[in-house]
């Protein structure tokens, strides 16, 4: 990972301009793997005591049974948390979040949503996120924080009881955790479809440019 540079290279000529720096790409794919493991093991855990009137098919869960799923969930959580913390830290320190995600205005989101739905949204400059992207990416970072914190609150409802109380108690925190998972899965579906519709954005997330 020789291109692991923490600053946004802005001096490079436009043709070879780095769209996604190495650290973003690395952490993005680590996160993707960790998230999928958390979602699939979470579904198996859910099946042991479903919150709603349905279960997830065994074919799309991870771990085989409750005990196996819990082992996966509490192993992959370290990958997710360490990677996520590093991502947040570097994103804040380098100013990437500020530069890429702000400003985020309702009027900007409305305009870009209209353009996107009519197929007129430009994808010429991939270094700049449009307002729909800004909203989705800022939103999913917040949901990621909520899923981890609510997860910790149902993992440690005694040691971290202040956190559990913040989510409205153990039972409510379970629903919050589930809702955050659902939001992430919803994001994932849209995110993958859009990436496939604009393949060069996918290429940028793999090779950087």
């Amino acid at each position, binding site marked *: 990972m020789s291109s692991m540079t923490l600053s946004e290279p802005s001096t490079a000529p436009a043709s070879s301009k780095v769209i996604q720096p190495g650290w973003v790409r690395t952490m993005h794919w680590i996160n993707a793997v960790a998230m999928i493991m958390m979602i699939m093991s979470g579904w198996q855990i859910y099946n042991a005591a479903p919150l709603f009137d349905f279960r997830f098919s065994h074919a799309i869960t*991870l771990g085989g049974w409750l005990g196996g799923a819990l082992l996966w969930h*509490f192993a992959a959580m370290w990958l997710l948390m360490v990677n996520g913390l590093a991502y947040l830290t570097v994103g804040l320190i380098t100013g990437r979040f500020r530069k890429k995600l702000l400003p985020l205005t309702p009027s900007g989101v409305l305009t870009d949503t209209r353009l996107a739905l009519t197929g007129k949204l430009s994808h010429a400059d991939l270094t700049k996120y449009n307002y729909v992207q800004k909203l989705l990416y800022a939103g999913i970072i917040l949901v990621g924080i909520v899923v981890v914190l609510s997860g910790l609150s149902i993992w440690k409802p005694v040691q971290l009881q202040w956190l559990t109380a913040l989510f409205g108690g153990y039972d409510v925190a379970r629903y919050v955790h589930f809702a955050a998972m659902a939001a992430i899965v919803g994001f994932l579906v849209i995110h993958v479809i859009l990436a496939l519709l604009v393949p060069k954005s996918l290429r940028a997330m793999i090779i950087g440019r």
Partner: protein
Amino acid sequence: MLRIKSLLIPGVDKKLLVKDATKLMPELSRRRFIAGGASLGALTLLTGCDVSDSFSAESMLTRISKFNDGVQAAIFNPNAMAPTFSEKDIRRPFPFNAYYTEDEAPNIEGKDWKLEVSGLVQNRKSWTLDELYKLPEVKQITRHICVEGWSAIGSWSGTPLRDFLKLVGADTSAKYVWFRCAEDYTSPLDMPTALHPQTQMTFKFDDKILPRAYGYPMKIRVPTKLGFKNPKYVVSMEVTNDYKGGYWEDQGYNSFSGS
């Protein structure tokens, strides 16, 4: 630091432990476990695990689970009390839960029952129910959280385990109190949790003598642990430095399983 290290390796060879644990795993759940690991295909490749040898994925997960035991022991605060609730929060009827049905539950004759106390204690005498009923009684209304995810609030009364351990002259520097039950269920409890003020030898549920469904004549109520670490129908406790495993722990549930 030393403390964390010694908790990571609870007095046994980890490799042997893993080996024994997998051997002890019931054949069915073992196969289910392996099937789950192998269906992962590409994912396991990405995590660097050999898909064809799914035992390596298993042993990696078991190692991380041991690590999680250490993390949980390190963040366990002996002064943090599990939240308590009021009478109106109690779930009635309280759910029965076990790996067998309610009418398969041990049916113990109180007069014939004795609690065996062994291991690193000064007084190894066995205790009758009448003797135990004379011990000071504390009542607690706490939330029982099952490993499956559901929870229910109940009221349990009995004597704090730490007072009983003092009474029998237990070596409280030992690592575990290991419980054995009438149906051969077993579960180890780490000493810091055994000494937690809310950890209780329970004789009553909801102010009435513990019914058969909830573990007559004695249950160990541990509000800082998941439900399966709260053994029912207990017949013996052993104070020990050896990790002796437990019914669910040997099948893969995290051994510390603290709340």
